[in-house]
């Protein structure tokens, strides 16, 4: 059966599914990135029960996206008759999904251990939190995570598992995926080149960490190394930076 025999409707449905999966991939990326950002606050002085609740919600969202994507990708890959360019794209998504799952699982493991090490049940536990210098909790990040939408309708009402069983579930999922679908991982070609991510949108007024810290050192020293001692002398500071 060649491709001309397939109805237009089938091809369109497939394309829609593939683009759904792509959206889900970027959604999963967003959610896991937010999860990681919030996880870095665990155990620090900004830790609290609200942070932990937000972590749980984000994890539930990620779980929904993962299970849906897993089902759809399996369905896409299981079809035996493939169009060439479609197959490459779907295989790439498959490999990226595996990587994302593995990355997320590592974060889940870390969070599980941190939550055990720093329990928040009693009052005295709050004294044992590490003063890291952060002031805000992860609520803004949690807000960003919450804006992510799964591209499919969430009628699939699966119960979200608790943390430990989630980790084990991902283990099982990974093993099953590796065994069921025979996609060699190294056959995937990336679409991005090396150093490609640098030239892009993010070159706004963000200073690098080095510059921020440099300026701080100079102003602390008060030995302005050649330029004037005036604290308001912006020009002098820039010269010091160039030194």
């Amino acid at each position, binding site marked *: 059966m060649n491709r001309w025999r397939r109805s237009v409707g089938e091809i369109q449905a497939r394309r829609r599914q593939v683009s759904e999966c792509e959206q889900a991939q970027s959604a999963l990326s967003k959610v896991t990135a937010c999860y990681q950002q919030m996880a870095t606050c665990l155990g620090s002085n900004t830790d609290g029960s609200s942070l932990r609740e937000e972590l749980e919600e984000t994890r539930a969202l990620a779980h929904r996206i993962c299970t849906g994507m897993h089902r759809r990708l399996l369905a896409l890959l299981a079809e035996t008759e493939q169009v060439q360019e479609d197959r490459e794209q779907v295989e790439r998504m498959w490999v990226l999904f595996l990587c994302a799952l593995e990355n997320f699982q590592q974060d889940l493991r870390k969070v599980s251990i*941190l939550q055990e090490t720093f329990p928040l049940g009693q009052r005295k536990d709050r004294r044992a939190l590490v003063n890291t210098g952060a002031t805000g909790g992860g609520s803004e990040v949690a*807000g960003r995570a919450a804006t992510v939408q799964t591209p499919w309708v969430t009628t699939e009402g699966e119960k979200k598992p608790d943390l430990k069983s989630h980790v084990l579930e991902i283990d099982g999922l990974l093993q099953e995926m590796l065994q069921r679908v025979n996609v060699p991982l190294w056959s995937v*070609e990336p679409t*991005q080149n090396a150093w490609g991510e*640098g030239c892009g949108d993010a070159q706004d007024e963000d200073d690098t960490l080095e510059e*921020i810290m440099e300026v701080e050192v100079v102003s602390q020293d008060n030995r302005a190394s050649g330029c004037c001692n005036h604290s308001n002398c912006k020009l002098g500071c820039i010269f010091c930076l160039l030194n």
Partner: protein
Amino acid sequence: MTIKFIRDHGQHYRPRMACLAKVEAMVLEMQDSKSGVKSSEQKLNITSIPHVVTGQDILAWIANHMKVDAQEAQTIGTMLVAYGFIYPLQDHKKLILKPDVSLYRFQTPYFWPVQKWKADNTDYAIYLAKRNIRKKGTLDVYEQEYYKNLHKWLNHKWDFIVMQAKEQYRAGKERNKADRVVFDCQERAYWIVHRPPPRTHSAMDYGVDRLIDPNAEENKTFDYYRRIIIFTQQAIMRSKVKSTVSLGAILKHMTTYKDHDPFLAPCLPSNPWQTDDSSYWDLNMRNVEIPTKMRVERWSFSFFELLNDPRGRTDFKVFLKKEFSGENLAFWEAAEEMKWGTASSISEKAQTIFKTFLAPGAPRWINIDGRTMGLTVKGLEHPHRYVLDAAQTHIFMLMKKDTFYRYLKSPVYKDIQKKALSPAPHNFTPSQLEQNAQNRKPGINPIIIWQQEEEERAKAAAAAGPIDIKKLMASKLDRK
């Protein structure tokens, strides 16, 4: 995706780092608002960040809490920084604790070192990509090297890495400015600990991976107890030495070898592992013409050293040739060859050795006592690898007690002592060190060295063979 589900019998577990749990407990105690370390605020241009501590405050707290002196507290503090529990804010690449007003902050528990998991290459790639996104061209040379290599190794994941880096960057931007600075500092400190810049020491270095998980409790089965019983029985049966004797031996060894240990004394001209300059290895090759002074001095420590060093052995051979007593060393070398050679050649070698060295009236008859001679000859009827061991030990002791001391007083040795080189120490600037690191070349192929040695051995064998009188007279007659 990394292939993790391998069911093999390889070594996959990191060795136990028991100190980590203890250090964690100490860091948590430092946080106490009443009895912990005093903290203040760090003033930056844009904002100010709390919970910053000075080096001397940390030192004072450690000295007080653990009741140690300042030097010990300094070491403990440096360990805290080296493991990554505290990170410096100024001079962030040098992980030491400075006992002055330099500023430090505590690392968040997410970035604490964990024994079970290595810092993943994927995460490092995401971090480098994030730095690239934030501002192009801020990666150091060694980080750019890493980036190139990671792009090659993790090529199939590269889309994921870039996507995740972008998302993490955007997620980070949601937080307020001070928190962003704090998080960036934390991440940077984490990666300096786990991917240290070149020519720095890393506290996370360890030897080899272990076969079993050191954290897993072992089931006390029948096999376990049987192993423990065998181990203790063997420990009881071992011969014991008085501690005064063994300590005396250690002391003697240390005083003799103190200047030759590359950890304790600088090795001349420079340690190749530190400066990437291989002149030390070139000067100390196996068959170099003129050895270094340190090497010659080492030969005088013990006969074992002299024999083990190939250059020393050739020198000793020259001396023995002058004394016409080379048969002892020749026998010893032949016995070594039999010990280390192939199993198929053992009987043949046994025959030649018997004919050359042991038979009554042999051309190079060695002088060993009657009992050993009897044992050896009897053993040679059914030769195995270690049949010459007793005779070899006897000859070794003979050479050591007699010939070795004569060698050390001989003009041959004094001559080589005078000729030996003493190279001047190198003094490289950091830019020269970078240059050296980039000019690293592989050494000589060991096969070539082996071929050279085989040629020399063949020449020596030909020279040591019985001289054909007729040919010698013929050549003399020819000249006339």
